[in-house]
C-alpha cells in the first residue's frame, strides 16, 4: 500500500482516493463530480504529450490536467 499523487500514476493503475487537497473553483468541481475520499479510481491513459490524463471512476471517463491531478492523493 502506498500513497501517490494521481499525476504520478501510470495508465492502467487503480486505487482509492485518500485525500483531495486544496480549495478553489477547480477543486470544488472535482468534489462535485464525486472525487471524494474512498472512491475507487482507474487511470485510463495519457494524451500524446503526456498531459492531460484520462481517468475512470463510477463509470465516468474524465479528462484532467496533471496540474489538477496532483491535488488527488491515491492509495494504490
Amino acid at each position: 500500500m502506498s500513497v501517490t499523487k494521481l499525476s504520478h500514476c501510470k495508465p492502467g493503475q487503480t486505487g482509492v482516493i485518500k485525500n483531495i487537497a486544496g480549495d478553489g473553483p477547480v477543486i470544488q468541481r472535482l468534489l462535485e463530480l464525486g472525487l471524494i475520499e474512498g472512491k475507487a479510481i482507474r487511470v485510463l491513459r495519457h494524451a500524446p504529450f503526456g498531459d492531460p490524463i484520462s481517468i475512470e471512476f463510477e463509470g465516468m471517463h474524465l479528462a484532467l490536467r496533471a496540474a489538477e491531478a496532483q491535488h488527488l492523493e491515491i492509495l494504490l
Partner: protein
Amino acid sequence: MTSQSVPTLPAKVALIGNPNTGKTTLFNALTGLSQKTGNYPGVTVDKKVGSMDQNIELIDLPGTYSLAGRSPDEVISIQVLLGQIAEQKPDLIVVVTDACQFKRSCFLVTQLMELEQPLLVAVNMMDLAEKAKVQIDVDGLKKVLGVEVVPVIAKQSSSLDSLKDCVKDALKKKVPAKVHWTWPEAFEKEGVKLAKALSIPLPLARRALIDEGLPTEQLIATQCGDKAIEQTRAARETIKAAGLSPARVEAELRHNWIETNIGPVITQGERGPSFTDKVDGILLHKFFGTVIFFSLMTFVFMAIFDWAGPLMDLIDGGVGSLGELAGSGLQAAGLGGGPLESLVCQGIIAGVGGVLVFLPQILLLFLFLAILEDCGYMARAAFLMDRLLRFAGLSGHAFVPLMSSFACAVPGLMATRTISNRSERFATIFVAPLMSCSARIPVYTLMIAAFVPGDKVFGLFSLQALVFTAMYLIGIVVAIPISLAVKKFSGFSTESSFLMELPTYKTPSAKTVFLRVYQAGKAFLTRAGTVIFVASVIIWALSYFPRSQEIHDSHEVMRTEVQAKKSGEELETALKKIDSLEQGTYLRESYLGQLGQFIEPAVKPAGWDWSVGIAVLASFPAREVVISVFGIVYDLGEDLDTEEDDDSKALTNKLKAAKWPDGRPVFNLPVALSILVFFALCMQCAATVATVKQETNSWSWAMLSFFGLTFVAYIAAILSYQIGMAVGLGDLVQ
C-alpha cells in the same frame, strides 16, 4: 376579478440535467421545430424554449453537473429555478439523469430537491444501462427521493408518451420536493442568517457561501448591493473558523447521502471493458489517435471546400439572376438607371448576396461539427489538443471554437460559450477571427494567381501553394502572442484548467444534428438580413454619391462620338467600355473614392495606392467585397469572379498594368504580399464584429477587437511590403 377573464398562460416546465445525459435530444424530441431562442430580460444569455403541448412551455436550461454558478448561463439557471426572473418561474422542474451514471446525476437532483418545488426525475438511457448491466429499482427510487421518477428511452416514442403523461400529471398534482438530510449546524446557522440578512431564498444563500470566487458572488452583489459580498465573506470565514470548508461540506453531504440511500436501489453487474474503452484505445492512442485526428480534420476541410462549391455557384448564379431580374423589372417600371436601381442591384442584392454565398459552407461545417459532437468525438479532440493549445494560454476547451473559425468566425465565436474560464473565453473570442475563414479564399486566390510566380520550390511544392498555406499559418502564429496578451491584460482571473467528461460513444441523433444545422442556417440568414444589409447599404451610398452631372456629360460626349463612328457588335463593345469607364470615374469621385485618396498617405508605407485603400475600407462588411471594388476601380464592371474565366484573367492583367502617376507599377510581389498578409490578419467582417459584441456583451471589447486586429494587420502589411522591397522581391517580374 375572476380567473375566467384572464387567459390561461401556458404552464412552464424547466428542463435541466448533466451534460451528455441526452437532455438536448429529449428537448428536441418533445418540442421539435417549435423551438425558439430568445434572451432573458436584461442579459444576453440565450433562452431556449419550445412548446410541448398547447399549454405547456418547456425551458431548456444549459447542461450542468451542479447549480454552482460558473458561467453567465449557469447563474441564469438558478435564478430561473428560484423564480427570480419575472414571469419565468417554472411550475415544474424536470431533471434528466443518466441511468448508467445515476449516482453522479443525483448530485444535481439533491440540489434541486432543496428548492422544494415540484420535481420530476427522468431517468434516461435505460436501454444503455441494461446493456452495461446496471439495474435501477424505480419504485425504490421513488420512495427514497419522495418525488415522481420516470424511466425513459429517448428513441422510443412510447417512452416519450409516458414522459409527457408524467409531466402533465405532475403539473396537476404540484407536490413540492422535500429535503431528507441535514446540513452541519455550523454551516446551516450561517446560511439561515445570511438568507435573512439579505432577504434571499435559503438555497441561494447556501450557494453564495459555497461558490467562493464564482459568478454567484456577483449575482448576490447585483441583487443585494456590494455590502452583500462582505457579509457573505464574513459568514464564510465563520464556517471556516469552525473547521469546515463549504465546498467540501456540500460534496460530502450529498455524495454520502446518495451512497447510503441511492446506492441500495441500484445494482451494478460485473463491468467489462466497454465499447467506448475499446474505441478510445485507438482514437486516443498516442500515435494512431493523433494521425486519425489530423486526417479527420483535413477531410472535414476538404469536404467543406469541395462539396460546397457547386452549391455556392448555384447561389452565386441565383443572386446574379435576381440582380438582373430586379434591374430589368425596375427598368420596365420606368425606374431604371437611377440611384434606386443601383441601390437594389449593386447595394442590396450584390452586398447581401455576396455573403449568402457562404451559406452552404456554414451548413456543411455545422453538419460535421454536430455529428462529431453528438457521437462524442469532440471531447476526444479537445483532449488530444489541450497540450498544444496551452502554448497560446488556452485549453482543450478552445479547440472546437477555433476549428470552426477556419470555416467562419461567427459560429466559432458562438461556440466559445462552453469555455467557463472567462479570461480564456475572451482570449479565444479575440483570436478566433485570426483563423483564416472561407471568405478569405477569394482574396488569396486572386492575389496569389496574379503576383506569386508559379515556380516549384525544391522541385516539389509550388510556390503559390506554399504562400497559400503560409496565409493560414501566419494567422495561427500571430494568434499565440495576442491570446497570451489578452489573457494577461483582461483583468479576469487567469487560473487555467482543463476538466472534461469523455462521454460514451453513441450514434448521433438525426434530429439533433438536423436542428443544429437548421438553427445555424437560420441565425446566419438573420444576420445577413440585418447587419450585413445595413452595412451594404451604407457602403453602397458612400461609393455611389455624389453623382456629378459633369462626369455624365463627358461620357455622353464619348458615347455620341462612338455611335457616329462604329456600328453593330463593335459599337456594343465600345459602349460597354465607356459604361465601365464612367463607373470607374464615378467611384473615384465618390465619397469613398475621396476618402481613399485622403488616406493614401497612410497606406502608402504598405505599398498601396488609393484604390487598394478604398478596397480595404469598402470591404469592411465582408472581405470578399475587395474583389468587386478592384473590379469597379479598374473599370471592368462589377461582375467579377476569381474563377479561371476571361474576366478573372482580365482583372489580373488590369492589376498588373496599373501604374502610379510616376509610371511605376502599383502592384508587384511585395504589394501583393502586404495585401495578403493584411487580409489574413484583419477583421474586415461586420458579422464577426457584431458577434463579438453579442458574445462579450460589450461594445468596447468588439471595438478593441476590431481596431486591435486591424492595427496588427496594418503593421504586418507595412512590414511585409518593406521587407519584401528590401530583399529585392519588388524587381521580380513574372
